């Protein structure tokens, strides 16, 4: 299937075939990372603006490398260093950037829906690099690519997503993507970290880690933000870790021997993941990061008008 959308804003709005197009394109671009000269001319003369209103190391770097390997001109624009700090509104900043005629704007913002506003305002392609607790489509795509590479397929796989579901854009994008590709999803965490009506997203809900991880093919652990404790959602990190931390003992007792452990990073070692699990044989956390570049290359390529074949 080809690609016809102007923007990549959510996984929710994509057809399964569109998700597969993105994953397949990313899979074919992975080999560039192994080349001596990591450069293809696909986006020569194209401009990619990374507009980051929220701190990010992994995602921004990953988009930057992806753009550069494709020969695009990549400009990083972060809120603290820009006019946002001087009080310019988001919409005004967007209009100013639009006046510089970029081909793609990659936006990360703490407000849900900010990329959708930008997409309405700007004629260039918009990529959502994470908005509030809404969606983080490229993270879900790299997770899907990782799962397919390790498991060989999507249909019929079961996944447990564990932790702060309520505030997680990664969880939302993954739930939509996994469901569309025939996987079953259970979200698990203390009830204060599960959003209301979570079942309406098409997943099961569990309040017990041991139950959630039993017999699943993939366990995705989410980062627990310290703010959640201050907001009164959990009593302490210690208690959270005691009941929701994934340890080797728990894995051995309840999970399948071939389970994959994923985490979108950055990991709170000793909170949601014990170090032995994070670094252990089940863990594919670094594979995820590596695939992030390929996925972002695929997204930039499809949105900036190139065809996947040009990169080969």
């Amino acid at each position, binding site marked *: 299937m080809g690609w016809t959308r102007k923007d990549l804003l959510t996984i929710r709005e994509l057809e399964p075939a569109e998700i597969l197009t993105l994953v397949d394109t990313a899979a074919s671009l992975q080999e560039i990372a192994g080349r001596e000269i990591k450069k293809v001319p696909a986006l020569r003369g194209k401009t990619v603006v990374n507009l980051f209103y929220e701190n990010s190391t992994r995602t921004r770097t990953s988009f930057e490398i992806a753009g550069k390997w494709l020969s695009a001109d990549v400009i990083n624009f972060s809120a603290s260093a820009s006019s946002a700090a001087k009080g310019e*509104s988001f*919409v005004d900043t967007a209009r100013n950037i639009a006046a510089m005629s970029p081909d793609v704007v990659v936006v990360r913002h703490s*407000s*849900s829906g900010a990329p959708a506003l930008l997409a309405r305002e700007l004629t260039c392609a918009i990529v959502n690099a994470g908005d*509030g607790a809404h969606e983080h489509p490229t993270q879900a795509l790299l997770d899907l690519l990782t799962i397919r590479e390790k498991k060989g397929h999507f249909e019929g796989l079961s996944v447990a997503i564990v932790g702060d579901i309520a505030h997680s854009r990664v969880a939302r994008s993954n739930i939509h993507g996994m469901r569309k590709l025939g996987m079953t999803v259970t979200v698990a965490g203390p009830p204060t970290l599960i959003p*209301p*009506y979570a079942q*309406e997203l098409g997943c099961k809900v569990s309040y017990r880690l041991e139950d959630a991880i039993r017999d699943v093919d993939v366990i995705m652990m989410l980062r627990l933000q310290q703010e959640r404790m201050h907001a009164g959602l959990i009593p302490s990190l210690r208690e959270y870790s005691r009941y929701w931390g994934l340890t080797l003992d728990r894995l051995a007792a309840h999970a399948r021997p071939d389970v994959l452990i994923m985490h979108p990073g950055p990991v709170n070692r000793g909170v949601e993941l014990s170090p032995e699990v994070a670094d252990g044989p089940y863990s594919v956390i670094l594979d995820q990061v590596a695939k992030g570049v390929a996925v972002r290359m695929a997204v930039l390529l499809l949105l900036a008008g190139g065809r996947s074949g040009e990169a080969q």
Partner: protein
Amino acid sequence: MTSPKREDRATALLIRGGRVIDPAAGLDTVHDVLIEQGKIARVGARLSAPQGAAVIEAADKWVCPGFIDMHVHLREPGHEYKETVATGTRAAAAGGFTAVCCMANTQPINDNRAVTDYIRAKAESEGVVRVYPIGAVTRGLEGKELAELAELAEAGCVAFSDDGHCVMNAELYRRAMEYTLPFGAPVISHAEDQMLSRGGCMNEGVVSTELGLAGIPAAAEDVMVARDVLLAELTGAHVHIAHVSTSGAVRLVREAKARGVRVTAEVTPHHLLLTEDAVRSWDANTKMAPPLRTRHDTEALIEALADGTIDCVATDHAPHALSEKEGEFDRAANGVVGLETAVALLLDRLVRPGLLSVATFVSRLSRDPARLLRLPGGSLGIGAPADLTLIDPDAALTVNPMDFKSKSRNTPFAGWSATGRPWKTIVGGTVVWEGS
């Protein structure tokens, strides 16, 4: 208490052959209405026009007591870039309203007589419809100490409210209810538990979960409605619940009324006509407090408006500049304008399909708000102020914010079409607005 400047107009006016709908008199028939000296002089069949009287031929039009919007934000003093008394009252007139009650969250706040006097003076010199100020309950709307409520009442405030904020201290709110008992003016409750709603920007539910926006549970409203009903019962005060948005609040008000508690309630057009689904557009014109709820709630609200559990419609007209509404949803200002769309949209969406009778519709916009605030008007009785709303039930309207008389354009209804709309607005016997 009124702004009487048009009361003594000498010119007589005859409104001929309209469908006269006066719920206070149980009247719904084709009649003439004669206005003299700014008052209703006669209502009857085939009245003759006195010498020199102006005549409005109103065949096929509705002739109603002037509509009263008991909940608007005129923004003056202090936020004149959003709205002024001059523009807000013109918006009211264009929307078929002959009187508005303006909330206290101006800058400076209407928590003292000087501000009330200022608003009334502005209304007198620049307003085109009647303006009744509502005073703050607490100084600075801070919820800490009572404003000078007796002096506010004396200056002409017709009710007391910290609207926009909830008085979280129940003891203080109890005292406000007691202290204002002698003034015959209700305390209007913005029922929102600000701890439960903290950080939220839309209804907590399926859509907030999908969009990743922090939710405000219905219970944030219901908890406070329950509290205020109990305080009304304790004090014997009249408590009016502003902008009811939940089925739970409807149930609490209904039960309280059945027990004889002095509680009344209003509902906005947006809470009647829109649900949380509208937020999927990310348009901040769907953001307000309380937030848009669910279909279950809108159905309960419509039923409650029809059966009288909810006493009246009020728009909560809340003008904001474009820059406050075009950005990120969670950072945008709360509120929408409502004066220029309410009548047409309710006619089309509630009256036309038969969810609300014509008489009930007219009553909820005129007689009922007048009754619960003890305002003059709300009927076409002989000697009543000649405030009338004339409606063309067949004229079409498509909402175009650029046509608004309001300074602000923040409506969630842009592009909506309706059949039936205001035709002429008459205040004190003078036509203050007429449609083209």
